[in-house]
């Protein structure tokens, strides 16, 4: 009988069972490693969440000037000169993590307003070994494969520096998990879509117009690019709209002005974010950003063209990009924007 043969086959193969000793040791080792990593990330996470909240919150759109007397009271030497911050939004699939939203925040020396420069994740950049080109979002995955988001951040930062020629002073990495938590924690995020979006992942429909998204919906929307008119570029615009809505929500609830709310938010986000503030102390950074964000920021995209023939990615537009990058490096974006108003991304906000 087949049942008896099965029993016999199972019994016969029992001797394949590996000894428990080495397995036990390997388990313990792996647990130790993961615990240590968790702790490290959590520590970094607290600082990071502050920057992320401050950057995402304060920078993207400031409907009204921040209340005087909260973040501005932080005692810190305020750095002069222009600052560039790098925000990475992570598409986190188990083994391959890629930086799918890449936002360069430029703080000019005159602290007049913030400039948000979105860089397409499909930008073609030289690979680390310099022998060929690959997509910008892939620079994150290999160094981060071990779970060290910081290593991925540094690799992407280097690629962005090479691409744009600007020094990156600080930055943060946000995962979808962090985005979901953040969204739920602040009670949902309002945003306005210029066109309807249908999720290919969950079949959820996002109608055109203004709506309020909870965490799961927000992450779903941020993942969509198929079926959008400009695919990836439209998704990057939606990410900017999301950030704008998040800011408005956070400000309306007074989260940033209420230390209790802020610390609860940061605690809940803790392990999901990673930050690097470089040489600039965090409080100083926050105070600069808060001050500069009082005016309406300007959203831009790095001027690109689609390079279909070679590798199906973007490369800097040879006519428009050099002027833009020169202005960015020389801290003259205000003049450039005045001369090229068509390059400003409409926020789709009321």
């Amino acid at each position: 009988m087949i049942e008896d043969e099965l029993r016999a086959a199972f019994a016969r193969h029992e001797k394949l069972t590996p000894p428990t000793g080495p397995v036990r040791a390997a388990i313990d080792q792996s647990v130790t490693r993961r615990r240590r990593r968790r702790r490290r990330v959590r520590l970094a996470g607290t600082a990071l969440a502050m920057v992320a909240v401050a950057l995402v919150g304060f920078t993207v759109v400031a409907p009204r000037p921040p209340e005087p007397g909260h973040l501005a009271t932080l005692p810190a030497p305020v750095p002069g000169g222009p600052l560039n911050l790098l925000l990475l939004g992570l598409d986190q699939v188990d083994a391959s993590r890629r930086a799918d939203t890449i936002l360069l925040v430029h703080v000019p020396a005159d602290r007049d307003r913030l400039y948000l420069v979105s860089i397409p994740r499909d930008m073609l950049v030289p690979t680390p070994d310099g022998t060929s080109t690959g997509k910008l979002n892939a620079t994150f995955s290999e160094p981060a494969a071990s779970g060290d988001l910081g290593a991925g951040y540094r690799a992407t930062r280097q690629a962005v520096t090479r691409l744009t020629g600007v020094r990156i002073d600080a930055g943060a990495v946000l995962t979808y998990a962090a985005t979901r938590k953040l969204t739920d924690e602040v009670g949902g995020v309002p945003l306005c879509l210029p066109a309807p979006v249908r999720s290919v992942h969950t079949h959820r429909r996002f109608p055109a117009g203004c709506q309020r998204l909870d965490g799961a919906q927000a992450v779903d929307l941020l993942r969509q690019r198929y079926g959008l008119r400009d695919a990836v570029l439209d998704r990057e615009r939606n990410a900017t709209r999301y950030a704008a809505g998040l800011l408005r929500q956070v400000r309306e609830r007074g989260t940033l002005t209420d230390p209790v709310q802020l610390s609860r938010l940061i605690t809940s986000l803790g392990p999901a974010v990673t930050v690097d503030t470089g040489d600039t102390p965090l409080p100083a950074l926050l105070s600069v950003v808060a001050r500069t964000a009082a005016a309406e920021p300007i959203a831009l995209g790095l001027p690109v063209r689609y390079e279909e023939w070679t590798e199906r990615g973007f490369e800097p537009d040879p006519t428009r990009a050099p002027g833009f990058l020169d202005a960015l490096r020389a801290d003259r974006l205000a003049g450039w924007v005045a001369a090229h108003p068509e390059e400003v991304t409409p926020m789709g906000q009321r």
Partner: protein
Amino acid sequence: MTYEEFADARLGALLRYAVMLTGDPHQAQDLVQETMVRVQLNWRRVARSDVPERYVRRMLTNQFVDWRRGSWARRVLLRGDPDDAVAEPADHAQSAVDRDQIWSWLARLPRRQRAALVLRYYEDLPDAEIADVLGCAVGTVRSSISRALATLRAEHVEVCS
């Protein structure tokens, strides 16, 4: 119960179970290791369940059934160890080949069906408990076992006739 006590008592049995599921000692080790790491990290939750052993077996089975690109399976496959089959005594070579045909047929079954067979014919669990481990109805367990047996019988006839 502490994690240490649990591992002392149950690790061997889990490894044997994983060998029956995967058919390969290396994959079994990776499967158990990955599961037990999560068990240890979340021990309080595991210990709260009525029967920790059953809870862990369910974790391990789910991990096996959900075997997907990008999870632990990729590491296993990339390592490319030859599938060292059981070395049988030489004088029984031919009969060993015949007998172990059934082992290789097992590998072709859908994972959920294989898990059901292992739970019934190796672990000797009652159908209700198999259903609990697999997270499905008792009727589903019975039908997937009979489907699996039918597949094996068909293979058997093909080879033996």
